């Protein structure tokens, strides 16, 4: 291992400013003369806006301007778009509703912006907003999938009958039907994947500026992809050339996918800034975040697994319905359908067919959140495997082991969407079983019963496509002193890129991290890029930086050959310097740098400077994978579920910084467990959001979350030279399934076949109360001399 290079658990470079309070988040940036924007939001689930009266509000102290949806239309601001299109129910491309910056004529979810007030202070803006009179006619609304698809459901969009936006199929229906026809056993399960919210601790924010001298807009905002944000705003909303807009993302306090989607407030501050010729800023308050951010997930799943007599998987059939919300966020459809390849899992599964329906409802648009469809797809296979195991009386670990793709079969074409290049799933499972003492679990279950507690254990294998998205750009420049500056189009919201990317450069160019200056997040500084999404950065950056570094080394050799007066073929890059082969004549990095900037001293034909810029498309996506095991204990008296153990055996191919990888796993697991245990977004029948603060939205707390034991099962990827697979989201992908399986396993002795998330104490207790085998179970407890809650349950 090279010092500071790949594989080292180096403490992070970015930490110094973050632990001393010198981080620079968007709200920390001071802008002279900045006004404050407040967004007035629709209060009904679905309403027609018959009139807006701003006369009194205009006179309120401090008000600079008030703008409504009518003004948006008058100024010709455009609509946001969707990353992908799929087929609608009629086979044609799906209906794309206009997604405006402010509601006009109709407000389609509670929380949609209907007007903005810009004032000197936020209090003044709020007080003025209270004076705005809006004439709403409430309309009947739908918030859930079931209500949206009901035959008599009101339509969110007239153009979209049945509220059905997308109807798409993936896989081989005929082969799957045949597999089911031949099956010795078919397991079926219906389950819910709840609607949740990314809830980064830093809420969304934006500062908009417009420079009359250049006619350029500048947006400072905590976003995951500055370039994509700029392109969406410039092209779709403002209809200007991308060069007329600059987007700067400073430190970002958590993104998780949420901040990868453009949202109206970004456009609104820019628009207002131009109108007022002064900067305008906006920061969401937490309740406002719940109302106005994109939400996530919200699926109803029907999953069937066909098995032969030996317990081998023959086919998987999935019917899933997804709630898109009232509009299409950038990634909404992608999350619903784009990651369905994870249905194959790590198993030999010859036939798969999935039908996916995506529906509109009068709720906030759903979008990307840690895993973006992969946690859901993984759960579609992992839940039904457990159901099958229970029905067949087989240990769920054993049933999985029988069906794992063997390492000797790589590269393995799943026959569905993906071809896996590498991975050792049996080893991963064995490791996870080992550290969790899976084989001794039934003893632990029995011991828990003696305390009137139900213990359960759940396993999930997860495999996901990572890094396959789009191109990325990096540029390395060496200055005359030999210091190196890296510009790259990715951006970090906590994943530690400032450290891991330096480690890559330390590896390739033998540099010390302190010698590397790192520029990212500013579209004016970095010409192009895609940003952080889909666990792509480690793999993409690894490949990209190796190529760019090679370009630097190649150029360095040219110059070193002049310095050392040797043929270029004899020059090698050794320990950070350029050396003549088989001699100890060297030119240091700094010496080469100095000469590079004195073209007068170079022979004719040499231009000055030492830099290399490339945009690369990665050779192929990668497939990070892991085996997760979760153990829970339920207090039968209160329904409280505690996670008593969590183990992950993860394959990230190659960890640039193992400590950072583990941190990503920890954080991802807790987000998955948070959803299983209690996070849920809930709208009532009138379309009101009832979970609009941390008082009602159950954020995972330190006292409730387990220690997460990780063990590495890295198998280098074969599709990129570094072997990196990526790590950002796997924790969540696994925890959703492992957690759900564990809770269902705990409730199994009561005859409960499936229990839907969230496992709040209320819901678990009711499930126990209504369980089919409750009487028999209590009788058995009593006859064994164990305590029962029989006296507790009314």
């Amino acid at each position, binding site marked *: 291992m090279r010092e500071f290079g790949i594989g080292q658990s180096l403490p992070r470079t970015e930490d110094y400013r973050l632990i001393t309070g010198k981080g620079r988040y968007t709200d920390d940036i001071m802008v002279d003369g900045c006004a404050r924007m407040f967004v007035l939001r629709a209060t009904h689930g679905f309403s027609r806006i018959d009139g807006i009266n701003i006369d009194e509000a205009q006179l309120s102290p401090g008000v600079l301007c008030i703008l409504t949806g009518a003004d948006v239309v008058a100024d010709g601001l455009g609509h946001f778009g969707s990353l992908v299109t799929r087929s609608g129910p009629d086979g044609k491309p799906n209906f794309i509703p206009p997604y405006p910056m402010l509601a006009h004529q109709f407000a389609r979810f509670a929380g949609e912006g209907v007007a903005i007030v810009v004032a000197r202070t936020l*209090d003044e803006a*709020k*007080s003025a907003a209270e004076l705005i009179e809006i004439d709403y006619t409430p309309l009947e609304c739908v918030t859930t999938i079931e209500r949206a698809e009901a035959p008599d459901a009101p339509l969110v969009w007239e153009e979209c009958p049945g509220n059905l936006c997308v109807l798409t199929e993936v896989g081989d229906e005929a082969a799957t039907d045949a597999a089911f026809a031949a099956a010795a056993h078919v397991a079926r399960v219906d389950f819910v994947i709840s609607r949740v919210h990314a809830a980064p601790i830093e809420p969304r924010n934006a500062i908009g500026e417009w420079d009359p001298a250049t006619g350029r807009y500048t947006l400072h905002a905590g976003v995951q992809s500055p370039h994509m944000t700029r392109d969406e705003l410039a092209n779709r909303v403002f209809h200007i050339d991308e060069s007329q807009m600059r987007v700067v993302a400073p430190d970002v306090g958590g993104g998780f996918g949420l901040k990868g989607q453009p949202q109206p407030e970004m456009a609104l501050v820019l628009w207002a800034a131009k109108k007022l010729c002064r900067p305008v800023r906006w920061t969401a308050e937490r*309740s406002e975040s719940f109302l106005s951010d994109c939400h996530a997930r919200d699926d109803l799943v029907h999953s069937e697994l066909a098995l032969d007599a030996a317990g081998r998987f023959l086919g998987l059939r999935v019917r899933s319905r997804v709630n898109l919300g009232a509009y299409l966020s950038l990634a909404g459809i992608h999350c619903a359908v784009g990651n369905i390849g994870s249905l194959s899992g790590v198993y030999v599964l010859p036939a798969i067919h999935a039908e996916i329906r995506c529906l509109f409802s009068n709720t906030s648009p759903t979008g990307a959140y840690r895993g973006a469809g992969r946690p859901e797809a993984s759960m579609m296979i992992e839940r039904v495997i457990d159901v099958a195991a229970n029905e067949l009386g087989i240990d769920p670990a054993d049933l999985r082991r029988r069906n794992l793709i063997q390492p000797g079969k790589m590269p393995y074409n799943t026959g569905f969407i993906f071809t896996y290049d590498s991975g050792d799933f049996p080893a991963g499972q064995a490791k996870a079983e080992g550290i969790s003492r899976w084989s001794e679990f039934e003893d632990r279950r029995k011991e828990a019963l003696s305390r009137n507690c139900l213990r359960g254990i759940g396993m999930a294998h997860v495999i996901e496509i990572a890094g396959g998205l789009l191109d990325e750009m990096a540029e390395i420049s060496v200055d005359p002193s030999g210091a190196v500056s890296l510009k790259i189009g990715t951006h970090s919201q906590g994943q530690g890129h400032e450290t891991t990317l330096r480690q890559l450069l330390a590896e390739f160019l033998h540099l010390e991290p302190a010698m590397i200056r790192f520029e990212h997040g500013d579209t004016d500084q970095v010409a192009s890029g895609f940003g952080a999404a889909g666990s792509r950065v480690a793999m993409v950056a690894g490949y990209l930086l190796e190529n760019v570094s090679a370009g630097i080394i190649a150029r360095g050799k040219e110059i070193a050959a002049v310095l050392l007066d040797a043929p270029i073929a004899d020059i090698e890059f050794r320990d950070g310097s350029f050396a003549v082969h088989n001699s100890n004549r060297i030119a240091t990095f700094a010496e080469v740098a100095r000469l590079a900037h004195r073209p007068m001293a170079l022979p004719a034909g040499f231009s000055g400077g030492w830099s290399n810029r490339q945009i690369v498309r990665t050779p192929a996506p990668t497939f990070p994978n892991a085996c997760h095991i979760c153990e829970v204990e339920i207090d039968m*008296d*209160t*329904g*409280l579920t505690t996670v008593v153990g969590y183990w992950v055996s993860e394959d990230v191919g190659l960890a640039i910084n193992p400590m950072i990888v583990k941190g990503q796993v920890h954080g991802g697991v807790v987000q998955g467990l948070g959803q299983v245990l*209690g996070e849920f977004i*809930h709208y009532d029948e009138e379309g009101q959001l*009832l*979970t609009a603060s*941390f*008082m*009602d*939205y*159950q*954020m995972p*707390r330190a006292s409730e979350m387990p220690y997460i034991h990780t063990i590495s099962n890295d198998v280098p990827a074969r599709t990129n030279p570094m072997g990196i697979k990526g790590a950002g989201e796997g924790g969540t992908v696994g925890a959703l399934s492992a957690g759900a399986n564990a809770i269902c396993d705990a409730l199994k002795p009561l005859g409960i076949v499936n229990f839907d998330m969230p496992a*709040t*104490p*209320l819901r678990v*207790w*009711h499930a126990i109360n209504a369980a089919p085998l409750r009487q028999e179970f209590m009788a058995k407890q009593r006859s064994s001399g164990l305590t029962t809650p029989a*006296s*507790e*349950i*009314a």
Partner: protein
Amino acid sequence: MYPFDYHRCNDVDEASTLLESLEDAKFLAGGQSLLPMMKLRFAQTGNILDLRDIPDLRGITIADDDVTIGALTRHADVGVSAELRAVLPALADLAGGIGDPQVRAQGTIGGSVANNDPSADYPAACLALDATIITSQREISADDFFTGVFETTLEAAELITAVQFRIPNQACYIKFRHPASRFALVGVFVARFGTTVRVAVTGAGSQGVFRWIEAETALTAAFTPQSVAGLAPDIRVMNSDIHADAEYRAHLTGVLLRRGVSGAISRVA
């Protein structure tokens, strides 16, 4: 927050007189109940009267049969008081479990009791420990003090100066935290004075904190968990929302009652 004027009071009389003369004014103790409401614009006032400088309103006094806690005593200080723990550990435990460490560093008993949040902990202690709320004007029995959700018998300009709790033979407070808000979803305080037992319940009732008479009768007859086996409050008086319906709250109250009795028995006092 809406704007307001700010005043700092030097003594109780000044505070009461000022509130009475201003009319549109509120007392500010620890701020952990009032300020959150004002930040969300759910409450407003033209004047804040900050009580922080008023002397003699902090401190814990232990007597033979009762403890008196000054109204501005912070939860954290009640929680770590060795003197209090020696005679009434259940109360110290309760205070030490309110909210979180930072909230406990500021929140006060006077503010909590005056606010009577239906999910707050102290009101349950007041009812179960037969407390006397001592104000700038009079002394009020806890049984008479709490009249409904966020409602008490305090007059407009009346200021709580201290709360006096009777020292029981045995007591215990068990709280089941609301998984999101971390307030008491249900909190049950059980206290035995000789053979007489008092039981107070917070969080569960739709009318706020209440004494559970049926439980008190059964436990007065026999102070054991078995004597209240299967007992649960009337579902009709239980609160209900998306986090906990009435049936669950009633059941949980019974569970916590039995755990509270076991907890009390396992201690000396």
